[in-house]
């Protein structure tokens, strides 16, 4: 039997091959067959999940909430030392210097990533800005959001922090960070559908055994952008994170 593993579409483009490297490694060590599903955006991901054939998910924290509490998916691992953070940046030449400088009716570029938008909205609260106060400009990638920001098409851009720090140096030099989150407790999560609970121990052992101290394994982890590897996640760890996410919804 082949297990379908879906990867949330919010990693930096250069990490794409890393998932295929990890899949190959896990198949070799667990004896399980994996088929990667790599949706290009949140809509395609939702469609794949709705089809009902997804056995494993590398989910962003926002989606993990409903997958665990509504669909019964089992959390079993998360990236070690790799929390989901976001950056609000403006052009280096902008007169804006902090979030509180943003005014109602300002324009912000963002990609189709609900976690980034959710956390970003919370970081705008000190400026008394709500979702309705902003003119949102949808960008199809973080690179596009960066271009819109540094060209002055928008007042600021929302970025997944890892994607922001992966931007070319010359791009980052033309941008200025207004705020970067340091939430620490919010991470992507690896989830298993309850129907594969029999195979889960083998897969979890293989995944948690990917060792950053082993040069071959480290190559795979670096390709993923997750150099510290994975750590086990208990149900209660996930419930704690979901409660935390819940407090950020409004």
């Amino acid at each position, binding site marked *: 039997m082949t297990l379908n593993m879906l990867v949330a579409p919010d990693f930096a483009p250069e990490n794409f091959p890393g998932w295929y490297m990890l899949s190959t490694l896990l198949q070799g060590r667990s004896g399980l067959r994996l088929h990667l599903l790599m949706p290009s955006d949140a809509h395609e991901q939702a469609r794949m999940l709705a089809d009902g054939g997804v056995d494993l998910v590398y989910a962003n924290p926002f989606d993990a909430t409903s997958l665990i509490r509504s669909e019964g998916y089992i959390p079993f691992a998360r990236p070690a030392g790799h929390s989901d953070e976001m950056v609000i940046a403006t052009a280096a030449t902008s007169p804006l210097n*902090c*979030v*509180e400088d943003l005014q109602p009716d300002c324009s912000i570029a963002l990609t189709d990533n609900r976690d980034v938008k959710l956390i970003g909205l*919370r*970081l705008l*609260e*000190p*400026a*008394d800005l709500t979702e309705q106060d902003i003119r949102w400009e949808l960008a199809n990638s973080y690179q596009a959001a960066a271009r819109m920001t540094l060209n002055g098409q928008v007042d600021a851009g929302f970025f997944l922090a890892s994607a922001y720090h992966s931007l070319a140096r010359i791009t980052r030099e033309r941008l200025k960070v207004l*705020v*970067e*989150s*340091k*939430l*620490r*407790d919010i991470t992507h999560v690896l989830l298993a559908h309850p129907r594969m609970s029999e195979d889960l121990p083998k897969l979890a052992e293989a995944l948690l055994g990917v060792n950053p101290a082993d040069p071959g394994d480290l190559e795979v982890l670096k390709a993923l952008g997750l150099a510290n590897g994975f750590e086990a996640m208990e149900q*209660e760890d996930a*419930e*704690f994170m979901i*409660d*935390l996410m*819940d*407090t*950020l919804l*409004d």
Partner: protein
Amino acid sequence: MHVLPDMTPPAEPHRSAKAIYQDGTSRVIHWSEREVPFPDGRLIVSRTDLDGIITHANAAFVEISGYSREELIGAPHHILRHPDMPKVAFKDLWDTLKQGRKWHGYVKNLRKDGAHYWVYATALPNVRNGEVVGYTSVRRKPSRKRIEELVPLYRKWLEEEIAGVGA
């Protein structure tokens, strides 16, 4: 029942009083006018058990409160209670949580050194297998404008409470 030790008086100008808490315990507190700004981009996270005893404190909580993690874990959440906060705000908090609902509010918190920090707090019940097993509180950077609007209201509520006690 956990009785908090009296606070150490700060070196800077301050006021002092005996604080009496909901659980019947009391301690001497000291507070100055100094405000410590909420750190940008951070969340202060804590969890308590059903009795309001702190069971989890993240690094941001430890840093801004001025207490060590060891001092916070096992202490009642009212260790943060500032005398400028009206009791009615916390009554609303606990009434809302006991109904299984989420609570939001602006809170002035007392640090170990007598200074204070303002937060926008959200608290919610931790429901596991249909039962409430504790509470999570997440505090984020507040709107300064909202705080300025609320300060006179909190002062009015506090004066009403003091007048009510005296009557």
